[in-house]
């Protein structure tokens, strides 16, 4: 079996497997098969140059695949920034800066206004641990129900 495989697995078998795996990526969720396909293509190219026993080929393929996935996750993916926060209420709100139009001094809650509507509304209730006077600018830290948790800038 081992000898048969050693004799009959040619470099183009790896190339075909690689292409199939890369193509299969389209139909499966998760960005994993692509790297296995890429590794298979690399093994195919390597086989064209030097002869390697089949077990070594498989181990090399697995190792190369893992290495590619890790490389992708560690170095390339973190540099891709999120382009939208649409549909993400928390991310859209936190860090936004608005100005206070109703102070929370002596009351549990005040009101603030954003320069542009956020989540469909430009006026929100806020609470804060500190007392904030009208006109001060505040930064949103969190959201609790329909009330924002803010801190003065």
């Amino acid at each position, binding site marked *: 079996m081992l000898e048969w495989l050693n004799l009959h697995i040619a470099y183009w078998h790896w190339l075909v497997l690689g292409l199939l795996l890369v193509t299969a990526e389209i139909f499966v969720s998760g960005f994993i098969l692509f790297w296995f396909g890429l590794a298979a293509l690399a093994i195919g190219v390597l086989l064209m140059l030097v002869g390697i026993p089949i*077990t070594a080929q498989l181990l090399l393929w*697995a190792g190369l695949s893992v290495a590619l996935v890790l490389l992708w996750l560690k170095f390339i993916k973190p540099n891709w920034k999120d382009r939208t926060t649409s549909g993400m209420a928390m991310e859209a709100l936190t860090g936004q800066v608005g100005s206070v139009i109703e102070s929370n001094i002596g009351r549990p809650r005040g009101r603030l206004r954003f320069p542009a509507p956020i989540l469909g509304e430009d006026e929100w209730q806020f609470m804060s641990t500190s007392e904030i006077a009208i006109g001060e600018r505040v930064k949103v830290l969190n959201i609790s129900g329909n*009330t924002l948790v803010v801190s003065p800038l």
Partner: protein
Amino acid sequence: MEGLSVVVALVILVIITIGMGVRIVPQGSKHIVQRLGKYHSTLNPGMNIIIPYVDQVPYKVTTKDIVLDIPSQEVITEDNATIIANAVAYINIVSPEKAVYGVEDYEIAIQNLVQTALRSIIGEMSLDSALSSRDLIKAKLKEAISDDISDWGINLKTVEIQDINPSATMQKAMEEQAAAERQRRATVTRAEGEKQAAILEADGRLEASKRDAQAQIVLADASREAIERVTRAISDQELPVMYLLGERYIGALENLSASDNAKNIIFPADLPHAIKGLLNR
């Protein structure tokens, strides 16, 4: 041969393990990660790595707005009228972990909250104001609910009152009231028309009488004028009068003789005397 089996098994293990470790979360949803049964983290859209076999994703939560249909219900207003109201609420999950762990089923929970809040808000209003002030109900509803849902990491974006209708019996009563009001107005209008007609008729009669009276006065004046003129013309001459009277007298006798039931006519012999008798001379 053994070496090959181990290597193939290893390769399969590697693929499955990496496949389990990589989680792709589509935009518009977040995944909850539990590490050995305890909450660990929330995955944001994009590609995420979890530790295979240790971490699990038991909940996938949408962060898009959720449309909640609030079923219609009977509500009794302050003035004891029954109306049927339903609404539609738009909620947004802000903190998926709170929504998932804070309440068993947040959709049912919020539906019930909106229903009860709607009932209590309309219960404080009269029928007419409840039917006409939707915006006020909306604002109050949002205010009433937002505190309750804050523990669940959910934001109530808007709540709209869809239908707010009086119940069938109430609707019938209102229709009857409207019909009666119209009937009353029709009756008043008719009565006013009749009154106007009577006044106009009486006015007509009054005007006609006035004119009749004036006509009589004018006639009398004319007679007086005529008599005066005749008197003036005659002054103390008896003969023309006698002549005129004699002529009329004979004419009258002629007419008398021409009538059917007068067979015997007796002429006075002394005509001037007879006329003088008429004149009382």
